[in-house]
């Protein structure tokens, strides 16, 4: 009932407002019945909760979390990939991506776990960081325009770039960079709405 009365008042407003002005122009200008909608501050999904992973298996996701923390750890108090939930975001992003990219990530993460088991008898996620870094040697190769022929090297190269982007474009990173006056990564851009 309340809602119906509210809607009726909105419908009536444009017709009645000019009429009131016409009745007595000496009176102060009335406050328009229809006002601009108040600007309410809203949050984003990441304020409300955490991404629910769906795409990677638990061992794959655990390996990606460890890899993310190695690629971009928290340095001097600045947020790192773990703070930015980069691995969970990439679970979402890769899950939406084309099949080739999905396969590259899945096989790359499996490879990390396989190599970790072979060399240290543990999953990649449970390795000490110096141990884990011994498995990332393909990242020591110079960058070339053509991606590496080896799929594992290709995965590591893509993952390095993606983890950094997912972190530096996160709210945590942008907020920290803004607070310190830094200009690294993320930031603000002109967003285009879909054209009518």
């Amino acid at each position: 009932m309340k809602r119906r009365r509210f809607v009726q008042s909105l419908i009536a407003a444009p017709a009645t407002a000019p009429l009131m002005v016409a009745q007595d122009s000496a009176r102060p200008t009335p406050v328009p019945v229809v006002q601009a909608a108040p600007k309410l501050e809203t949050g984003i999904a990441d304020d409300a909760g955490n991404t629910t992973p769906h795409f990677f298996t638990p061992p794959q996701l655990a390996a990606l979390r460890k890899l993310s923390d190695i690629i971009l750890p928290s340095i001097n108090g600045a947020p790192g990939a773990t703070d930015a939930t980069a691995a969970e975001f990439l679970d979402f992003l890769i899950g939406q991506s084309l099949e080739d990219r999905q396969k590259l990530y899945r096989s790359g993460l499996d490879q990390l776990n396989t190599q970790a088991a072979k060399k240290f008898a543990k999953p990649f996620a449970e390795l000490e960081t110096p141990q884990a870094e011994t498995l990332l040697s393909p990242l020591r190769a110079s960058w070339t325009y053509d991606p590496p022929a080896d799929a594992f090297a290709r995965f590591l190269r893509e993952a390095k770039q993606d983890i950094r982007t997912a972190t530096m474009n996160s709210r945590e990173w942008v907020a920290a960079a803004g607070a310190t006056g830094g200009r690294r990564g993320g930031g603000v851009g002109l967003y285009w709405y879909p054209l009518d």
Partner: protein
Amino acid sequence: MPAKDYDVLIIGSGASGGMAAYNLTKKGIKCLLLDAGPLVDFEKNRILRPVYELPYRGFGKPGKLPHLFQANEFNANQWVDEKEVPYTHDPKQPFNWVRVRMIGGKSLFWARMSFRLSDFEFKAKDHDGFGENWPISHADLSPYYDQVEPIFRVAGRKEGLAQLPDGIFIEDNSPDSAATKRFADSAKTRGITVTKMRRALGNGQFASSMNLLLPDAMATGNLTMVPNAVVRDVTVDKNTGLANGANFLDRHSRREVHVKARVVIVGASCLESTRILLNSKIANSSGVLGHYLHDQFYMSNSVVATIPEVRDGKGGRGLVGGGGYIPRFRNLDKTKPEKNFLRGYALDFSTGGTPDAKYFPQWGEELQKTLDSHRGTSFSCTLMGEVLPRFENHVRINKDVVDAWGIPVLHFQAKYGDNEFQMAKDAVQTIGEVCHGAGFEVLNRNDKMFPPGYSIHELGTCRMGDNPKTSVLNKWNQTHDIKNLFVVDGSSFVTGGSQNPTMTILALSMRATDHLAEQMRAGSL
């Protein structure tokens, strides 16, 4: 209401169509201008947003615009949706067709690099024997460049170079940084000239037909502009053989409308204009419509270097920053071909950024320290190479695929050849040497090209020429086959050089419409 007859129908509102409207309406000619896209309110259609608020954190929706390397999640909606207006190609021969459908077209987003072509392009065959000459020379077009440059407020520095004719510039006397001077000095020892960039200032925010041409045309009272009009074909009077209008579909409702005009000008961008003519089955007695497709191959970050003495925050004022342009310097002396390729390339460069993390084979804290040390020390350049116009590189209609308005799409068959590959190798090698000579440390060289189309400078598919058997247009951008049909965009180019084509497109459109207006006044059209 009976349909109105216009003097001139103009299809497309970008640089070429906008200039046609600007020039003709000022002469009192009643024009109707159609554009496939909307009139965009830039205040309402764009908003400043932090990247973390975007649904994909700036990565963009996977698979949305696979051919658009320029697209990101902020600007994804400004480009033509490939699902709405598809095109086809052999998967092994991709073409990155980058399109904008809005009033103003691509002139809303261009890089504003503003150069003239020289007689090294207009008379290229005379120089090296390849291909064809244009039917005009720089002297023919120069009076029109002279008018276009002040409208677009081109800033630059006069250099007196034959391969890059000077124009009517707002003189750029800004000082170069020490790093830029050192690079220029190193280049000079190799016979390479470094110039200031030549750039259209426009009115600040834009240098577009939307703000510099169309408002003046509207002010004459002689322009009717209809957005959201997707032209399918140009219509021809069966009795006279002359163009008499066009069919278009309303972008929203798909309602079909026919418009009439005494003269039709197509300026919908090189490949959309070609598509309209091919779907109209006109202006192709030569059989070359759609052929000789060429662009300029662009290679971003073809050489990336760092400037050692400004590392660790030592880049004080005047030491680093700014950039410049290297006009073509290869094969200028026709008596001494100097390389294993024809023609040449240009580069633009900048100093003072931070190299991308991908160039450092590190991660974690080690990488972060390196990036901190290299902040503000970067040199990078974009290579822009001439692509030879070849008959076999072409577009044709694919009848089996239609766009959202039921209009058959283009099929592309185009690839770069050995001339372009050799040119790219030479450029990367040479600029790497110039960097070394300047004391820069080269981080990466790349001589691998993006697919054709990346430069957004498609040219040549309705080329002009004196011979109706080997060209679509005459020297006035008028089709050989139909005298009241003109094509005024980049499709009319015979060769493209390495210079950005927009100034030439504007000058050609102004010249063609001057000629058209004179013919109309004389009663021959």
